[in-house]
C-alpha cells in the first residue's frame, strides 16, 4: 500500500552555529524542493514562529507561494500555522487564492501556538488561544472545503485535549513529532470519541510528523546531528518553558536538558529498511501522510541533501 511521504519541516532558521543569510536559506529551500519533487515526495512542509532572532519563518503562505511557483507537482504544506495569532479571514483568503494558483497543491496545518511573546506581538492573550481556535476552525474549515480547488486542512496536536477539538469537527490531525506511539494511540482514542459524540464523520487518515534521518552510518551521523538536534530542542523547550527571572543559565540549561532527552529518543535514525519499517508502524496506526523532519535548524547542506536522498529511497519503498 502506498504511504505518502512529506519532507519537512523547514523553519528557515539562521541558527547560531550556521547563521546563513535568509536569501541563501530560501534559495536552498527551493533547491531542496526541486530534489524532493524529483525523488517523488508527496509534499514539503514549512513551520511558523515570530520575532525570533534567527528569522524562523513567520509567513508560511508567502513562503509556500515561492515553492508553488518554483515547482510543478510537489505539494506544499504548513506545519503548522499558529492560527489564533492570525485573522482567519486573511488566512482563508490567502490560502484559497494560492490553492488556485498552485493548482490544488497547498495544504494547511494549523495549531494553537504556545509562546507568550508571539501572542503579545499581535495583541492576543495566550490564554484565549483555545477559545479563538474554537471560533476560527469551523470558519476556516468551511472556506477550505468550499475553495476551488479545496484546501486540505489539518489540526496540529500534541495533546488529547487538542485532538478532541479537531474530533468535534471531524478534521484530520497533524500529530506532533514528539509523541510516542502510546501517546498517539491515546490521542486517537480521544479524537474518535469526540467525533462519535459530535456525530461527525472521521477522515480516513491523519498526518503525522516524525524526526527521521536515513543513514548507513548511525554512529557518524548521530555525532553530526546531536548538536543540531540539541539546539533545536533547546529552542523549542525555551519557548515552552522560559527561563525564570531568578534562574541561572546553567540551572536553566539543566532544566531544558531534562525535557529534551526523551524527545531526542524519538528520532528514527537508521538505514532504508529500518526507517521504512518504523514508518509502516505509524501508518498502521492510521497516519498518512507522514512528514519526515530531516531538517533540524539549518543542517550543513551536504548532510541535509544526503538525508533527503536517503528519504527518497524510503519513499520508493513505501510506494510499493
Amino acid at each position: 500500500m502506498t504511504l505518502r511521504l512529506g519532507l519537512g519541516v523547514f523553519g528557515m532558521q539562521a541558527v547560531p552555529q550556521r547563521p546563513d543569510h535568509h536569501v541563501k536559506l530560501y534559495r536552498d529551500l527551493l533547491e531542496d524542493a526541486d530534489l524532493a519533487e524529483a525523488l517523488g515526495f508527496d509534499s514539503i512542509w514549512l513551520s511558523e514562529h515570530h520575532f525570533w532572532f534567527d528569522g524562523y519563518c513567520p509567513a508560511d503562505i508567502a513562503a509556500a507561494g515561492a515553492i508553488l511557483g518554483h515547482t510543478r507537482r510537489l505539494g506544499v504544506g504548513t506545519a503548522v500555522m499558529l492560527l489564533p495569532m492570525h485573522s482567519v479571514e486573511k488566512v482563508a483568503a490567502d490560502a484559497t487564492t494560492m490553492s488556485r494558483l498552485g493548482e490544488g497543491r497547498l495544504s494547511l496545518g494549523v495549531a494553537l501556538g504556545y509562546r507568550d511573546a508571539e501572542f503579545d506581538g499581535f495583541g492576543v492573550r495566550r490564554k484565549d488561544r483555545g477559545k479563538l481556535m474554537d471560533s476560527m476552525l469551523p470558519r476556516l474549515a468551511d472556506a477550505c472545503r468550499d475553495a476551488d480547488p479545496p484546501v486540505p486542512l489539518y489540526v496540529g496536536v500534541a495533546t488529547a485535549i487538542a485532538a478532541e477539538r479537531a474530533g468535534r469537527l471531524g478534521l484530520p490531525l497533524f500529530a506532533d513529532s514528539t509523541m510516542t506511539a502510546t501517546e498517539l494511540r491515546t490521542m486517537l482514542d480521544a479524537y474518535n470519541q469526540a467525533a462519535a459524540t459530535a456525530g461527525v464523520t472521521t477522515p480516513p487518515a491523519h498526518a503525522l510528523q516524525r524526526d527521521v534521518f536515513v543513514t548507513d552510518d548511525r554512529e557518524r551521523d548521530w555525532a553530526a546531528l546531536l548538536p543540531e538536534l540539541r539546539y533545536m530542542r533547546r529552542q523549542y523547550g525555551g519557548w515552552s518553558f522560559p527561563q525564570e527571572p531568578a534562574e541561572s543559565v546553567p540551572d536553566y540549561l539543566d532544566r531544558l536538558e531534562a525535557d529534551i532527552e526523551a524527545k531526542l529518543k524519538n528520532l528514527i535514525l537508521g538505514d532504508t529498511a529500518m526507517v521504512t519499517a518504523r514508518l509502516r508502524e505509524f501508518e498502521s496506526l492510521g497516519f498518512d501522510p507522514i512528514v519526515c523532519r530531516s531538517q533540524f535548524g539549518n543542517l550543513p547542506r551536504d548532510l541535509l541533501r544526503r538525508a533527503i536522498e536517503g528519504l527518497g529511497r524510503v519513499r520508493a519503498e513505501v510506494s510499493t
Partner: protein
Amino acid sequence: MRLGLGPIALAGSTRASLEALAKAAVAASFDSVWVAESRAGGVGGGLAAAAFLAQLVPIRVGAVLDGGLYHPLHMAEDIAIADVTSQGRVEVLLRGAPEEHVRLVLAALSGAHMRIDGPTLRVPARLEANQPAPDALALNPRPAQAVVPVWVDEAMQAIGRDLGVGVAAAWRADTPAPAPSGRWPGMLLCAGDVAAADLLRAAGKAASYFLVDASSPENVRSAGWRLVGPLRMPGFPEWINQQ
C-alpha cells in the same frame, strides 16, 4: 520612467494565465509585473502570489494590497518573506490602510526594535496575561532590500509624503501623475491602450512609474512596443516602431 504590467486581478487568475502575462511582460521589456488582491471579494494572498510570480519571471514583482483588515505586522512579515524569496524584487502598493498601519509596516520593515503605543495598536501589546511579554520586538527575517519600495493610494497622499513612501493614482486624462515622494516616483495606474504621449504629458519633468493594465499577452506585447521606446528615450524616433 518605469513601466510595470498590471495590476493583474488575482480573482480568477490561474498559474497559466499569470505566467502567460508575466512572460509577455518580460519579453516586452517591462520593468515589473503586479498582481492585485480583492479582499472584499475574499481574494487575498497578494504577497504569496508575488513570491509565486518571482519564480516564473526574473523581473521585479509587485502586489497591490488591501490594508486595514488584519494586523499590520502580518503584512510586514509577508512582505519580508516575499522579498527574501524573490531575492529583493518585491514592491507594494497599499490601499485602504489606516495611517497607523502604514507607519507600523514601515517601522517593522526597517528592522527597528519596536515599542509602539499607537492610537489603536500597542506593539508589543505588553498584556498582563502574557508572561514573559517582551518590552520591544523586531521583524525577523528582514527584507532582502535595504528599503522595500512602498506606494500608498492617492487618498493617503499627505500621509505618504510625510512618511517618504510613493503615491499612486488612477489615470485621468489631462491630470499629472503624482509627484515623486521620498525616493519613489509617482505611480499612475493606466488602461492597457494608453498612449505614450499621454504618459509623457502626465509625467512632465518628473520620473513616473506607469502600471499598464494590459489584459492579454498580445496586449502586453502591443503596449510594450508602443511605450518602452518613448518612455526610455526623450525624442524617440517614431520611424523605429514603424519599420
